[in-house]
């Protein structure tokens, strides 16, 4: 699992990015992450809830509400201000890192 300078794994980054769109429950987060990553990241349920537990324990997300659907509890998670700051800082860091490479001509262009 790749990690940025903030210690944020790619999976947790996409979970936080999914929650920027508003509170979501587990299955909706999985679908949102698949969409945001263009199908590259499909979170298994055990991995998703492990990440949600860690993010919640560190105050990056919180439980917005609980609903009972078909007799089963469903938690909706919401990103906190700290989480918002963290994911935006990570996005900026990656953007700067990407600019280092993207701003240079490719080898093909150099030798053309």
């Amino acid at each position, binding site marked *: 699992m790749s990690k940025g300078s903030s210690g944020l794994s790619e999976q947790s980054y996409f979970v936080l990015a999914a929650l920027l769109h508003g509170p979501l429950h587990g299955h909706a987060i999985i679908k949102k992450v698949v969409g945001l990553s263009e199908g590259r990241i499909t979170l298994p349920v055990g*991995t998703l809830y492990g990440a949600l537990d860690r993010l919640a324990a560190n105050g990056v997300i919180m439980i917005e509400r609980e609903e009972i659907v078909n007799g089963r509890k469903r938690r909706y998670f919401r990103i906190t201000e700290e989480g918002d700051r963290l994911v935006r800082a990570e996005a900026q860091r990656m953007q700067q890192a990407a600019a280092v490479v993207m701003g240079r001509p490719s080898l093909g262009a150099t030798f053309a």
Partner: protein
Amino acid sequence: MTTLERRYRWLLRAYPKGYRADHGDEFVDVLLDSAKPAQALPAPREAFALIVGGIRTRIVAAAQGPAWTDGLHNGIVALAVLNLAVLIPYAGSIRLWLALSAAALVLILRGHVRPALPVAGIVAVKMTAITMGSPWLDAMLLPVFPDAWWAGPPLYGHGGPIAPLASNVLLVGGLLVLAARRDGPRARSWWWLAAVPLLAGSDPAWLDIAAGSPTAMARVCLEVVLLLGAALAGHLTADSRWAIAASVYLVPAIAVLYENIESIEHLTRQDIAHTTLLVVLVLAAAVVPFRARRRILL
């Protein structure tokens, strides 16, 4: 309940009971929503993630309460397991002491440190007496030979008295420290008892690794697995309790090397490699939590 739900619920047993009671239904809900129509078998990726997630959750849940007392208790349990396992080949000759050692282990394991103290204390005195060749406390023919179906030297016939004494002093001293506290340690898993038959016949007081016996190899494998587990737990929780437990276990192992350093001709490369491996793994378990604290992994 469908077959798939039943199978997923079985896999969810990797999680602690309380966690399962709180979130098991929610997990099943999401797992079934993610399943294909007519799917009867859990997806291997989901199954693997549930097992890994369950183990991780158990480790995180175990990091409760003061780290040093919990770690000390954990280390003492490991020593008590080993002390009992050592006696098993001699059961026919030392039934009373085997029973008392087993009782001490069960009491320590379940967190009853005060009742465990006199039991572990009297066993410690007797074992020290045996290593010194003195029949204290009860009449006993020394040396104590193993039962007919066990091959091997007499009890502590090759090693001691420093290493067994170090182990017992640490065990009883640790119990004294824990008994002085108002809040006793928590009960630990009965799974610790599974290590006793695995380690039966080990001689931690002697350099038995070079012999390459199945018992010695089982002990080394178990040590490596548990110490790697201690490092992993320290990495996941940034908590030092497992490193403290590992350090407690390491002390008698170092004492064996110290005790035999003079008879250098007995030291083999395997013995030195074994002790070095233990030291490296304990150091890794000690360092990992500090690294994890510097950088919270999300």
